[in-house]
C-alpha cells in the first residue's frame, strides 16, 4: 500500500519542481483548452444545425426551375416516397442602396400550411396585408445594413421600383450561410434575402401562380435517386436546373465544410500541444528519477514495491497534468464562447448555444492523462530496473567510447573542450534526437500559426492584384453587342476596358454535375487573368471529378434557350477561392451559335475618376451589379480575412506561450544536468563564463539543429493541415514568408537567450562547494 506520507511527497515535489509544474500545466491547459473549445464548438455547430433543420423543417431534396405552374404540385406529391412539398416563388431584385446590393425575394408558404424551409422570426412580426408591401428581411443583411422592423427599403422588381416595409427580421435553414450567386465569399452588405406573402410577391412580380423553387421531404426508406429522377422528369419541360440532395444545397454544404474543419482543428493543434506536454513530462520525470535514485533506493530498502514507487511518480506526473486540465477547462470554455460568437456572424442559425459538454471535457481529460501516462512510461521502466544496492552507491560516470570523430584525422586536432561538447552531444543519440525534436516543436508551432497570415496575404496579392487588375466590374442584365462596350470605354478617366461573356451553365461529366458560371475570356486579357486557349477548369475538378486534359465535358446553358454543347478540357487552373470554368470568348460564342457579345465589363479607371464613372454606370439601365475592387477587398477583409487573422492570432499567442515553456524547460533541465560539470571546470581554473558557455554550446547545438527540422516540419504540417481542411471553396497556396521564419527565429532566439541568462544567474549563485557535490 502506498502510504499518505508518500503522497505528501507529491505535494512537496510539485512545489520544488514548480517551474516544470507550471510549464507542463501551461502546455496541458493550452492543449486541453483548445481541444475542449474546438470540440464543444463542433458540438455546438452540429447541435445548432440539427435543431434548426428539425424545427424549421429543412427539405431533403431541392430543385430550381425557371418558371413552372403551381398546378404541378399534385404530380410532384404523387412521386413515391414524397411526404411534403413546398413550392416557392423566387425573384432576384436589385436593392436601391449604396453599393447596389442584390437580394432574393421568396414567397412564404400559403397561410395555414406550415411548409418546408420555414422562417424563424428573430424580431418584428410576419408580413400582413398593407398598402406598402411588407417583407421579412434576412438577419445578416438587416444587421449589415442596420435595418429593422418598421424601416423601409426600395428595390427594383421586374424593372419597376417598389417600396417595401420591413415587418420583421428572420432567418431560414436554407440560408444559414448566405452567399450571392457567383460570389466567392459571403458578404451580408451586398447580398440578402427577404420573404413576403405569395399573394404580394405574385402581385409585385406579375408572375402569377408559378414557382421557381421546390423543396421536398421524403420518407427515409425511399431511394433518393428515384425521387430525383421523377422530379427532374416532371420539371424538365419548365426549364429545370436539375434537382439535388440536401448535401449539395449550397448553404448546407458550406455549413458541413465548416463543421469538418472544426473537427480537424479539434484534433490537429491539441495533438501537437499535448505531444509537447508528453515530451516535457518525460524530460522532467527522467531527470527527477535520476536525482532521486537514493530516495528511491531507500524506499525500496524500506520495503516498498517498485510498483508503489512507480505509481508515486505516475501520480506526480498526473498531478501536474491535473493542474493544467483545470485551467484548460476554464480556457476552453472561454475560447469556445468566443469561437461560437464569431460563428454567429457567418452562420445564421436561430441560436448557437455553446456549453462545454461533458464529452468534450472528458475528451480533454482523457487526452491529457494519456499524454501524462505516455510521458511517464519510459521513466517507469527505469524505476523498475533500479536495484537498491546499486542506487545507494555513488553514480558511475556516464559511458563514453571513442567514436568516428576520434579515429578521423581531425580527431587529434579538435581542442579538448570542443571534443567534450561534441561527445556529450553525440554520446546519447536517442536523447539528442528527442531534445532536438522537442525544440523543433516550438518552431513548428510558431511557423504553423504564423503561416496563416502569409497564406492570407498571398491570397489577397494573387487574387486581387496579380490576377485581377480592374478597378470596377459591372454585370449586365443580358448580353449586349461588343461594339456597345466603347461607350463605357470612352468615359472620362477610363484607362482600359475588357468585355467578358458569362454563361450560367450546368456542367456534367460522368456521374458528376455542377451549376457554375462559364466565363468567355477575351484573347490576351489584361484585366482578369489567366488567359486561356481552350477550356480551363479549376484544379478541384481534376481531383474531385477525376477529369483529365482531353476529356469532353457537357454544358447545358441555363440562360433562355437551354442550349447544350460540349467542350474538351485543355488544362487546369488553380482558384484560391471558389471554382471556375474559363473558355476563349469566341469559342463560347460559336458553341452558343451567337454573335460576339458580352454581359460583364471590367474597367481600369484613374483613382480620381472612380466616383464619376460609378455614377455613370449606376445610371445605366443595363447593369445589375457594379462592384469596385476596393469593395471586394473590404468585404474580404471583413469576412474570411477577419476569421483567418483572429484564428491565427489565437494560435500565435498559444504557440509563443508553448514555445517559451518548452524552450525554458529544456534549457533548465540540460543545465541542471551539467551543473556539476560546470563546477568541476571552475575548480580546475576555468573562468565561470568559459565553463558556462562551453555547456551552453551543447544546448545551442540542439537549438541550431532543431531550426531546420522545425522549419521543414512546420512547412509540411501547414500543408497537411490545409489539405485536411481543404474544401471545394478554397485552394490556398501554402506560402511561408521569410518574415515568418525570421519572427520565429527572433522569438525562439530571445527565449534561448533569456533562458540561458536565467540559468547563468542560477549557476553563478550556486556556491561552488554545493555545485561540486550536485548529483549528475
Amino acid at each position, binding site marked *: 500500500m502506498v502510504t499518505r506520507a508518500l503522497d505528501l511527497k507529491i505535494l512537496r515535489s510539485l512545489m520544488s519542481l514548480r517551474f516544470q509544474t507550471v510549464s507542463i500545466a501551461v502546455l496541458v491547459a493550452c492543449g486541453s483548452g483548445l481541444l475542449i473549445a474546438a470540440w464543444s464548438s463542433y458540438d455546438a455547430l452540429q447541435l445548432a444545425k440539427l435543431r434548426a433543420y428539425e424545427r424549421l423543417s429543412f427539405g431533403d431534396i431541392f430543385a430550381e426551375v425557371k418558371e413552372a405552374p403551381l398546378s404541378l404540385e399534385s404530380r410532384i406529391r404523387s412521386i413515391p416516397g414524397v411526404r411534403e412539398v413546398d413550392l416557392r416563388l423566387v425573384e432576384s431584385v436589385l436593392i436601391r442602396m449604396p453599393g447596389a446590393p442584390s437580394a432574393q425575394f421568396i414567397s412564404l408558404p400559403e397561410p395555414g400550411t406550415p411548409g418546408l424551409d420555414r422562417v424563424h422570426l428573430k424580431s418584428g412580426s410576419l408580413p400582413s396585408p398593407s398598402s406598402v408591401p411588407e417583407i421579412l428581411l434576412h438577419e445578416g443583411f438587416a444587421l449589415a445594413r442596420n435595418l429593422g422592423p418598421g424601416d423601409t427599403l426600395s428595390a427594383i422588381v421586374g424593372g419597376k421600383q417598389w417600396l417595401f416595409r420591413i415587418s420583421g427580421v428572420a432567418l431560414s435553414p436554407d440560408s444559414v450561410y448566405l452567399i450571392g450567386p457567383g460570389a466567392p465569399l459571403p458578404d451580408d452588405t451586398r447580398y440578402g434575402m427577404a420573404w413576403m406573402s405569395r399573394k404580394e410577391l405574385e402581385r409585385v412580380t406579375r408572375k402569377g401562380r408559378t414557382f421557381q423553387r421546390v423543396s421536398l421531404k421524403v420518407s427515409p426508406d425511399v431511394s433518393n435517386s428515384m425521387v430525383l429522377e421523377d422530379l427532374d422528369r416532371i420539371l424538365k419541360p419548365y426549364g429545370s436546373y436539375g434537382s439535388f440532395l440536401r448535401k449539395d444545397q449550397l448553404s448546407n454544404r458550406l455549413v458541413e465544410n465548416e463543421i469538418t474543419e472544426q473537427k480537424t482543428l479539434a484534433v490537429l493543434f491539441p495533438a501537437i500541444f499535448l505531444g509537447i506536454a508528453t515530451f516535457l513530462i518525460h524530460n522532467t520525470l527522467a531527470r527527477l528519477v535520476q536525482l532521486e535514485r537514493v530516495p528511491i533506493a531507500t524506499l525500496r530498502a524500506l520495503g516498498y514495491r517498485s510498483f508503489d514507487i512507480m505509481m508515486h511518480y505516475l501520480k506526480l506526473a498526473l498531478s501536474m497534468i491535473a493542474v493544467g486540465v483545470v485551467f484548460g477547462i476554464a480556457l476552453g470554455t472561454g475560447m469556445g464562447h468566443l469561437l461560437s460568437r464569431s460563428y454567429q456572424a457567418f452562420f445564421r442559425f436561430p441560436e448557437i448555444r455553446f456549453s462545454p459538454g461533458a464529452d468534450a471535457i472528458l475528451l480533454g481529460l482523457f487526452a491529457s492523462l494519456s499524454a501524462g501516462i505516455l510521458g511517464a512510461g519510459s521513466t517507469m521502466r527505469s524505476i523498475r530496473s533500479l536495484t537498491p544496492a546499486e542506487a545507494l552507491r555513488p553514480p558511475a*560516470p556516464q559511458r563514453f567510447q571513442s567514436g568516428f570523430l576520434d579515429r578521423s584525422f581531425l580527431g587529434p586536432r579538435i581542442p*579538448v573542450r570542443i571534443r567534450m561538447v561534441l561527445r556529450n552531444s553525440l554520446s546519447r543519440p536517442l536523447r539528442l534526437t528527442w531534445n532536438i525534436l522537442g525544440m523543433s516543436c516550438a518552431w513548428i508551432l510558431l511557423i504553423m500559426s504564423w503561416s496563416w497570415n502569409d497564406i492570407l496575404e498571398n491570397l489577397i496579392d494573387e487574387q486581387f492584384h496579380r490576377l485581377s487588375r480592374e478597378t470596377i466590374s459591372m454585370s449586365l442584365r443580358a448580353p449586349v453587342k461588343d461594339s456597345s462596350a466603347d461607350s463605357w470605354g470612352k468615359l472620362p478617366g477610363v484607362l482600359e476596358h475588357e468585355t467578358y461573356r458569362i454563361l450560367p451553365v450546368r456542367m456534367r461529366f460522368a456521374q458528376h454535375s455542377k451549376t457554375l458560371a462559364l466565363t468567355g475570356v477575351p484573347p490576351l486579357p489584361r484585366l482578369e487573368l489567366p488567359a486561356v486557349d481552350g477550356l480551363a477548369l479549376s484544379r478541384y475538378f481534376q481531383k474531385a471529378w477525376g477529369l483529365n486534359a482531353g476529356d469532353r465535358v457537357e454544358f447545358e446553358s441555363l440562360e433562355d434557350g437551354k442550349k447544350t454543347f460540349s467542350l474538351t478540357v485543355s488544362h487546369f487552373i488553380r482558384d484560391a477561392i471558389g471554382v471556375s470554368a474559363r473558355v476563349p470568348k469566341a469559342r463560347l460564342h460559336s458553341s452558343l451559335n451567337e454573335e460576339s457579345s458580352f454581359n460583364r465589363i471590367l474597367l481600369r479607371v484613374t483613382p480620381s475618376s472612380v466616383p464619376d464613372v460609378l455614377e455613370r454606370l449606376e445610371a445605366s439601365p443595363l447593369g445589375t451589379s457594379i462592384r469596385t475592387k476596393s469593395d471586394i477587398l473590404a468585404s474580404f477583409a471583413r469576412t474570411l480575412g477577419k476569421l483567418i487573422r483572429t484564428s491565427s492570432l489565437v494560435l500565435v499567442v498559444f504557440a509563443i506561450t508553448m514555445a517559451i515553456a518548452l524552450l525554458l524547460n529544456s534549457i533548465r533541465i540540460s543545465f541542471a544536468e551539467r551543473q*556539476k560539470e560546470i563546477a568541476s571546470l571552475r575548480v*580546475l581554473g*576555468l573562468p*565561470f563564463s568559459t565553463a558556462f558557455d562551453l555547456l551552453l554550446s551543447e544546448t545551442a547545438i540542439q537549438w541550431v539543429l532543431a531550426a531546420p527540422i522545425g522549419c521543414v516540419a512546420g512547412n509540411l504540417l501547414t500543408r497537411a493541415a490545409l489539405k485536411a481542411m481543404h474544401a471545394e471553396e478554397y485552394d490556398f497556396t501554402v506560402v511561408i514568408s521569410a518574415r515568418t521564419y525570421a519572427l520565429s527565429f527572433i522569438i525562439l532566439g530571445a527565449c534561448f537567450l533569456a533562458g540561458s541568462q536565467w540559468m547563468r544567474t542560477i549557476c553563478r549563485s550556486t556556491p561552488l*562547494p554545493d555545485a561540486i557535490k550536485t548529483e549528475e
Partner: protein
Amino acid sequence: MAVSGPERAPVFKARNLVKTYSWGEVTVHALRGVDLDLYEHEIVVLLGPSGSGKTTLLNILGGLDSASSGEVFYREHNLVTSDEDVLTRFRREHVGFVFQYYNLIASLTALENIRLVTEISSSPMKPEDALDLVGMKALADRFPSQLSGGEQQRVSIARAIAKRPDILLCDEPTGALDYETGRKVLEAIQKIHSELGTLVVIITHNAAIAGMADRVIRIENGRIGEIRIQPERLPLDEIRW
C-alpha cells in the same frame, strides 16, 4: 620531515577564520575562529568527525568558498577579499584538487581530462608524464566509465598535479576506495609530494592515514583542537586500516 616554525614564511596563513551558513531560520557555524599556518613541502592531514568543519576549511583555502570573517593569506594575497576572477586565477595557477568522488569529466578520456588543465596552465608538465607519475600511462585513452574507482582517483590526482601546483588539496581521497586501491592512491600522492615538493593537505576520517603526515591537525566543532607534529612519517606499508 616536518618543517615548521616562525623562521619560515607560511604558504597559507589563516587568522580568526569564521564561516557560517544560514538555511532559513537555521544558522550553522562551520568554522568558529580558526588560526592556522601551512608551510611549503609539508604533508598535513586534517582529521575530524563529520561536520567538524574540515571540508569548509579546505574549500576556503582552495578558493572554492569565501569566509564569513577573518583572513586567509596565500603568501601575500588575501583570499577573503579576492574577487571571483582572482580566485579563478589562483585555482588555475596554484591549487590542485582531489575529491572523494573524483569529479572527472565523463566525456573525456584520462589523458584529455589532464589536457583540460594543461591547456590553461602556464608551466604544466606533459599530460603523459602526469599520468606516468600515478602509474596510469597505459590507460591514458580510457574514459572514466572504463576505469575502476581507484584508477579514476589516480587520474584525478594526475589532473590535479599536472599544472605543477604549489598546493594539493585532497578531500577524502580514499573515502570511496578499498584498502588496496586506497593505498595506491596515497602512494601516488606521496610520490608527487617527494618529486615536486608540493604542500599537500589531506582531509580524512581515517586516523590511520595520519601516519603519512608531517603534521596532523585535529578539527573539532569548527575549531583547531590539536596540532601534532610527527618527526618521522610512517612508510605506507605500515599504514593499515
